[in-house]
């Protein structure tokens, strides 16, 4: 890894940017964007976007994002007191002046969980009966019960989780890492997105994997489960790869002549990008094709992994992407927004994600990849300890909750078998070891070898960071 700047840094920078301004250049430093946008602003050593500040523990991240906000009260953070008080008002001292979403103007009543919990792993983490597979890997993961965010509605909260800010317009974590670290793979993008739960739950915005004010080369590329695996990757009907190659040869020859005539290095870049496109026409469909996986894989991931577009299939793809050294692999699984009929909804989603998440972690472990791959499981927020719609154990619901929720992490230098943070006895607020989203971001960057205060990009006359002006590395989470 290149940790220092050479004296002829400027020349290198310039040349590199000319030759590899592409999305997926090979460099380990986020230099292309430096030249393109920010040469003047970002060349002081303290602001080097691409310099690794620490020896990295992790090379890549798989972020299993649970869109909609899973209920921590029913999954990771049992509160027997809520069951005792079921249907009674929450203490005013807890909820006074606190924000709620759809419960605005409604009575705030305690709602216990209908699910049984048992303790697992060295830390004795309580895990709900809804997550038997997750419970089996309590030795591998660390549960965080003290997550906190600042936005209470889905769109701003997802935006906050991804970018560290509730307002649109900033780069997401994957884009920051693509900018900071570049790509390790010459045939695939640095930042890949997979979506499951299509047709249900909260909508997604493509900005959730957008590069904000960073150059668009750093945006996530969605790999799709139906239609073109990457938009427009497939040749038109009636055009074989042989014909396509001939066309590409013709384009390349003409572009080379143009390059000789006008000398614009941008043409050289275009020639390279067309070759990259050609390689991805093979590498992407190969990757997306799960049909050649051995039976043992499906024994691990379950039958659902055979159906494209499921979370299980995407977990399997995530492992394959990790094997190919894709830097940031972002899964979106939808439909966790259980304002009512929570028992039906949450049981269904747990069936989709529980075994697959377990399988992914085990698979990575077996292949020796877990050591340098971070796996993160989280929603954009959690759900209230108060009921929504009714207090029946059969049909209750819960509103959005930002003051305390749960997530888990594994691999890549995160502690295994741990438990961090606790909430008060009704699960309303964080009691100890708060992990704000800024802190989670700072910790992830730390494990990737980056000091979060030094990964900076200047836009609109201001230096921006993923962690804004906040964030602390959470030492308790580290090995």
């Amino acid at each position: 890894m290149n940790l220092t700047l050479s004296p002829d840094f400027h020349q290198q920078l310039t040349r590199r940017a000319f030759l590899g301004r592409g999305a997926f250049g090979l460099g380990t430093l986020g230099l292309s964007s430096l030249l393109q946008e920010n040469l003047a602003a970002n060349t002081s050593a303290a602001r080097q976007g691409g310099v690794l500040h620490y020896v990295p523990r992790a090379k890549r991240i798989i972020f299993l994002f649970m869109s909609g906000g899973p209920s921590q009260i029913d999954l990771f953070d049992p509160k027997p007191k809520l069951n005792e008080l079921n249907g009674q008002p929450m203490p005013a001292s807890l909820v006074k002046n606190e924000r709620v979403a759809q419960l605005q103007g409604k009575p705030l009543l305690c709602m216990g969980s209908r699910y049984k919990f048992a303790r697992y792993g060295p830390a004795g983490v309580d895990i709900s009966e809804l997550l038997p597979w997750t419970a089996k890997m309590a030795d591998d993961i660390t549960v965080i019960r003290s997550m906190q965010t600042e936005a209470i509605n889905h769109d701003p909260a997802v935006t906050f989780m991804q970018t560290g800010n509730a307002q649109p317009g900033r780069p997401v974590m994957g884009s920051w890492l693509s900018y900071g670290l570049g790509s390790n793979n010459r045939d695939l993008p640095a930042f890949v997105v997979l979506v499951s739960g299509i047709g249900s739950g909260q909508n997604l915005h493509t900005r959730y994997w957008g590069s904000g004010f960073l150059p668009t080369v750093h945006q996530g590329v969605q790999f799709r489960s139906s239609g073109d695996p990457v938009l427009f990757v497939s040749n038109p009907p009636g055009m074989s790869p042989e014909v396509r190659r001939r066309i590409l040869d013709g384009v390349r020859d003409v572009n080379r002549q143009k390059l000789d005539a006008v000398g614009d290095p941008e043409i050289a870049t275009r020639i390279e990008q067309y070759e990259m496109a050609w390689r991805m026409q093979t590498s992407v469909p190969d990757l997306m094709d799960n049909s050649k996986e051995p039976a043992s894989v499906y024994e691990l991931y379950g039958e659902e992994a055979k159906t494209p577009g499921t979370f299980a299939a995407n977990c399997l793809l995530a492992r394959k992407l990790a094997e190919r050294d894709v830097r940031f692999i972002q899964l979106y699984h939808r439909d966790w927004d259980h304002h009512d009929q929570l028992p039906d909804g949450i049981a269904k989603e747990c069936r989709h994600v529980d075994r697959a998440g377990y399988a992914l972690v085990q698979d990575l472990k077996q292949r020796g990849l877990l050591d340098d791959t971070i796996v993160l499981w989280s929603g954009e927020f959690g759900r209230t300890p108060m009921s929504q719609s009714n207090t029946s154990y059969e049909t209750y619901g819960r509103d959005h909750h930002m003051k305390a929720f749960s997530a888990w992490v594994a691999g890549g230098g995160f502690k295994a078998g741990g438990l961090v943070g606790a909430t008060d006895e009704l699960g309303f607020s964080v009691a100890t070891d708060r992990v704000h989203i800024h802190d989670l971001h700072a910790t992830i960057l730390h494990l990737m070898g980056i000091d979060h205060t030094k990964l900076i990009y200047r836009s609109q006359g201001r230096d921006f960071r993923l962690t804004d002006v906040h964030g602390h590395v959470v030492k308790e989470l580290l090995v």
Partner: protein
Amino acid sequence: MKSGRREILAAALLASLALPTGAAAADAAVDFDREIRPILSDNCFACHGPDENKRKAGRRLDTREGIFATKDGVTAVVPGQSDASALIQRAISHDPDEVMPPPKSGKQLTPAQIERLRHWIDQGADWQGHWAFERPVRPATPAVSDAARVRNPIDAFVLERLEKEKLAPQAEAEARTLIRRLSLDLRGLPPTPVEVESFIADSDAGAHGALVDRLLASPHYGERMAQMWLDLARFADSDGYHDDTPRSMWRFRDYVINAFNANKPFDQFTVEQIAGDLLPDATVEQRIASAFHRNGPTSSEGGADANEYAAKYAVDRVNTTSTTWLGVTLQCAECHDHKYDPFTTREYYQLFAFFNQVPENVLERAIQGAPLMAAPTPEQEAQLGELTGRVAALEQHLKAHMPEAPAAAAVELNKQLAAANQARQEFAKSLPQLRVMADVPEPRPTHILVRGDYRSLGEQVSPGVPASLGKLPDGLKPNRLALARWLTRPQHPLTARVMVNRLWQMIFGVGLVKTSEEFGSQGERPRHPELLDWLAVEFVESGWNVKHMLKLIVTSATYRQSSKISPGLLELDPENRLLARGSRFRLPAETVRDNALAVSGLLDRTRAVGGPSVKPYQPGDLWREFSYGDSADKTYVRDKGADLYRRSVYTFWKRSILYPSYAIFDAPNREVCTARRPVTNTPLQAYVLLNDESFVEAARVLAQKVSAEHPEDFSKQLHRAFHLALARPPSAAEAATMENLYHETLAVYRRQSEAAAKLLAVGDSPPLAGADPASLAAWTCVANAILNFDETVTKE
């Protein structure tokens, strides 16, 4: 004096290009604003600047008073005595508790920077305000030795710099290159072969200017300009936040197109968009213009707090106004005093106070997002007038003849009247509804939102503008209209500079101030400051005449240069900031598609400008993949016929799932005001050009066109295709490459007739009757290649 200053600038530029700075310029007079303020701004202002709450030791270095003040016996800067100046003493200190900036800030002054600070102090410490906040004054046009190269004053400024650098500009580009460049720049469409040939044949000295006049008079000029402006106006066809419901704002888009086409003076254009609704006797058009500030994203999410979102909307309006007209980023001041420029949080909320007066349905979907207006097109207005006239006429008739009319006739008349009334009402209901601005009759009080939190109300403030930029004109009610009048005062330091810089950016790819969204002290200083000021003054004195400014720019010798790049020049000036050559860059997203449509002949030319947004080809399930579970607009229903081929400025702009080929070519989703698009170069762009249905169909139709025009003659066909796509004939080598491609693919399609049929079935446009499918498929491959040439998607 003038020329002395220019020499300094030139010397400094040389030095800065050569890196590192230092020795060469050591003895020259130090320019505070250009050399010293940036050092102070970067290293000191965060703790010793405008932000009162973060200010350390009560010491301020961003003002004249502060930097020379003696406090506790310590003076930061003692003019003429660098050794006695605390600024230098602290900068060179080895004591970690003394040295400035402090080690924990992570900042450190370089020896060269300290040296410049010393020189500045020893030379007398001349202090000036930030250049962009001072009114521009028209500089004298410089004299240059090679006067023959000067076509207008722009060239004199550019050439003077080049002569200092001992650089020669490039020769003028070929006529066919120039007409393609002009046509793409001013119309966003390529020239037709007939236009190219007649321009080449026109030997008149005024041919270039006459062509520019024709292009500026084209209705497509307004469409092209709107493409740029709509990014600033964050215009879109959907709500943006949460489930991103479709909305209907296209009458605003058409206002922008028409305003540019009519060459509406920019001051008027500004006033109408910021405060058209507040103008006395506001016309329909002026009220439509006020939709500018209803374009921002809105939410209808259940459980959202209306107060929170009302504040968000006002913040969006402040930020958009400041980026669009002031070219400064005020948004830091939403939470704390600006750290670098003289803008306080209080002033931020004084601007906010102009924009939080809208009686809006904060959390309603767009269609219920009052205030709304019926926004008829001129044709609809006429039709409405006719229907109203008919009702009136019938009423008149009834009144006049009722008494003596027989009962049956009266019944009949009444029936007709009822029908006419109903027709009118139904028509009125069908008119496009547009979200527009309005103010509540009694101004609402505005409070500072402490740290930007809508629940923490601070001090109450009244509407006003930042003191460092002047004050509202006297005698006006302090509302949006006064704000707009203030922005368009001829002496405003920013409005004209920001706009001419934007025009420059559009034409040359990079503005004279590269950070076109940021003219404050953290933005880039202009590379040609005097040229920028000259243009700004010219703009105001021309009556804010946008076409005049564009004509000046594109008739300059600077613009007309060839874009050929020599290796030496590339090394010296990779971004072409010195303008020793023509600019060469990839077309914007919309133009990439429009160009392919125009080259193939698919572009819809049957309709005048304007109309509802359209939905061209897009992979079927894209919207469904991301849409809210039960939302009504889950499926993208693509249009048919001519709507598939309308110019891209009319494409439906859904914020959460932007039309993919535009997103891939760097178009913003327009959730926030965007002043500058990046220009990237990626494999995904190759996929769009190679495989997107729009582009494959364009290739097929181009193939059909040349095949029909020149049957059985590949060479002629190829020439025709090159002329259409590139405004030039192919070289011998290119012709050989393409002919080879044709024969290779022809052989394939001779063997695979089914494949040929499939390829020729892409897109809705009709096939060429009677053509040989294999030959046409092979030609489609050739055309696909042509549409993928770097040159095809590049302005040369």
